[in-house]
């Protein structure tokens, strides 16, 4: 099955390895991602400050374009990997579905450009599609390099589950943990996994943010805690969180003392590795730091034979 795809503006920049790995993973699992023709920016967390109706219209144009390309589809899933884009699209979809003055104004505005959105297009996050459409069984069956014993810190951040969480619990999400457990990993217990890293487009991260010291403090707290809990790798669902957590570790070391040296990647990269996809197709070479513990085949054997003994007993 093929999905309509909303790449988002980060897909040619900091989020490039996210897109590369997702496309490779979907292909490996027999699904496709078809980018919406002439898609535009979702407005992110910035545009609602300018005007809520215009912010909704930005998303609605993308839905309208997707629907126009698929006049036959009763329901059209629009896959949006960036958690920020996903939340913006969800918000717009809900505002349009609720109707009322705002929805009417946006519909009229779309009409001035010969566009219309009738509600068939719905945003989906790739994590949702992987866990709930493709399914954990199929993914486990396609796993050729199990992530045996890898301690994964699954970072959800803010916008994947807040304020809406159509496919998970907004307080205690578990989709990523279930996904990586199905591939043999051992996700860590990490209460901070939905805490803000400070890198939202709004705050802009330590680079352009309003409060660089606050951003650095928030991300440092997250990484330090993940490390303390024994994480081998932190995985994210958002290009802004990923870059914010990966790119400023030297600055954290200067500000807070010790070097953390934590590998921070996209969840799709780790998934791709387990599916046996080569590193380059997953954009691993684009990361500032990528170091996972060596898995010796001998250890696997010992572990497996131990498990076997337990089962036999």
């Amino acid at each position, binding site marked *: 099955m093929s999905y309509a795809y909303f790449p988002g*503006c*980060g897909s*040619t*920049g*900091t989020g*490039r*390895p996210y897109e590369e790995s997702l496309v490779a993973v979907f292909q490996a699992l027999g699904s496709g991602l078809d980018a919406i023709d*002439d*898609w*535009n*920016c979702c*407005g*992110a*967390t*910035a*545009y*609602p*400050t*300018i*005007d*809520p*109706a*215009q912010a909704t*219209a*930005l998303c609605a*144009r993308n839905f309208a374009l997707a629907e126009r390309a698929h006049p036959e589809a009763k329901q059209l899933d629009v896959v949006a990997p960036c958690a920020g884009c996903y*939340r913006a699209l969800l918000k717009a979809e809900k505002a349009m579905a609720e109707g009322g*003055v705002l929805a009417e*104004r946006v519909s*009229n*505005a*779309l009409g*001035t*450009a*010969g*566009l219309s959105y009738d509600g068939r297009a719905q945003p989906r996050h790739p994590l949702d599609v992987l866990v709930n459409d493709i399914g954990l069984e199929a993914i486990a069956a396609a796993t050729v390099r199990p992530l045996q014993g890898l301690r994964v810190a699954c970072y959800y951040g*803010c*916008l994947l589950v*807040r*304020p809406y969480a159509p496919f998970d619990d*907004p*307080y205690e999400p578990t989709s990523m943990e279930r996904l990586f457990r199905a591939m043999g990993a051992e996700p860590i217990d990490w209460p901070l996994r939905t805490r*803000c890293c*400070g890198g*939202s487009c*709004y*705050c*802009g991260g330590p*680079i*352009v*943010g*309003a*409060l660089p010291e*606050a951003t650095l403090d*928030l991300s440092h707290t997250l990484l330090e805690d993940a490390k303390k809990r024994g994480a081998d790798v932190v995985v994210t669902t958002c290009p802004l969180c990923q870059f914010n957590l990966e*790119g400023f570790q030297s600055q954290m070391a200067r500000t807070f003392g010790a070097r953390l040296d934590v590998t921070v990647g996209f969840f799709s990269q780790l998934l791709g590795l387990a599916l046996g996809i080569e590193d380059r197709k997953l954009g691993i*070479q*684009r*990361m*500032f730091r990528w170091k996972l513990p060596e898995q010796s085949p001998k250890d696997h054997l010992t572990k497996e034979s131990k498990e076997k003994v337990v089962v036999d007993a």
Partner: protein
Amino acid sequence: MTDYMEYSPHVLNALRLGGDYEEALISRAIWACTSCYACTLYCPKKIPITDAIYTLKRAAMQAGVYPKHFVTPTLVREFAHFVHESGRNSEAWMSIRLYLKTRPSQLLRYGPLGLRLVLRGRMSLRRERIHRPDELRRVLDALEVNAGGRP
């Protein structure tokens, strides 16, 4: 993030509704909001507080009363500028323009990080554009306050 706010989100909302609207408007707290939606999710009455803070930010920008050293209002304007002009955002160009307008000295400080991104193919210097920016502008302009878009 509330550690960096002089008023917590629910207090901001109370100020907005009946306390001291101007105090909320000039607060630094509204600009410290990262729109993480934690206040909205955890509110026992399900009040959309994040949206209320957006309203305050918008009003503060229109009134021109935001703290001058905060870059967020400029970021918002630059963001909107890029979307209006080309339909998409270009991370590199937006950062550069923002620095030039707010803290030019930081360009030197973060130059090496930008270069690392460029070398790893994670920062494109190409200005991203959609094919039909006119179509998008027509939609946005129809919603302009002065274009009769308001009911």
